[in-house]
């Protein structure tokens, strides 16, 4: 039997989301940008699970499974774009990719 209030995990999810947002805004390295997105997705999953606990409904955990699914698909594409960007521009600075066209080889 769980006796925990649903407020505490909801506040934890909000705090993790804010930490992820701060990282997303402050960091320039694309590795940390991707990691901050993962932190925010994970906080969303925590909120879904909290809601599932609050109403005793499996839908919360089902949505968490879909959030993990989304995080995996997003990270695969994000990482391959990061690798290609690193090969093209030889840097991980997100601000360097602002031309929207090919770099002359």
């Amino acid at each position: 039997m769980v006796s925990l209030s649903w407020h505490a995990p909801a506040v934890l999810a909000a705090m993790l989301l804010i930490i992820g947002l701060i990282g997303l805004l402050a960091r320039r390295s694309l590795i940390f940008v991707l990691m901050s997105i993962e932190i925010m997705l994970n906080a969303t999953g925590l909120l879904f699970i909290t809601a599932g606990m609050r109403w005793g409904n499996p839908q919360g955990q089902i949505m968490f499974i879909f959030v993990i699914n989304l995080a995996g698909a997003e990270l695969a594409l994000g990482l391959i774009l990061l690798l290609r960007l690193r090969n093209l521009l030889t840097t991980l600075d997100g601000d360097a990719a602002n031309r929207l066209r090919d770099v002359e080889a």
Partner: protein
Amino acid sequence: MNLSGYDIVFYAAAAFALLTTAIAITRANPLYGLLNFVLSLLGMAVVFYTLGAPFAAALEVIVYAGAIMVLFLFVVMMLRLDRTAIARESGWLTRTIWIIPILAGAALGGELLYGLLRGTGPTHAHHIVSPQAVGLELFTSDIAAVELASMLLLAGLIGAYHLGRPARARD
């Protein structure tokens, strides 16, 4: 407020997850950041367990920390980051760069906390959602969403394969 064993474990794991996440986004070396984030995910798994979601806790360890973050770690290792890259990275991490993000985060966080803490309704839940319940619901009434999730993964696979091929093969 009398704390039960579950509550103490929850607060300890929550503090651990918050601390390691905050460490993760402030490191200059991406490997240390990622390893701290993996620790945070393990703390989150304990949080999920105390919230009565043992299946989600197992998924967090096996899929999130075990598969997704290890993929991330391997790619970062493939990037061959040397000392100059890390030095440039820590050069970007000046103190002033954090001011505006923290202000923006505080504004959004204040709104979220205001909304959450003013929420009404019973504050105590008494539900443990078993893995059987999750699986039964997922593969009966939510089967269309499972198919959509598999389409999403297939799209990610094809996209990663296409973008990952060398340039000569792609043209």
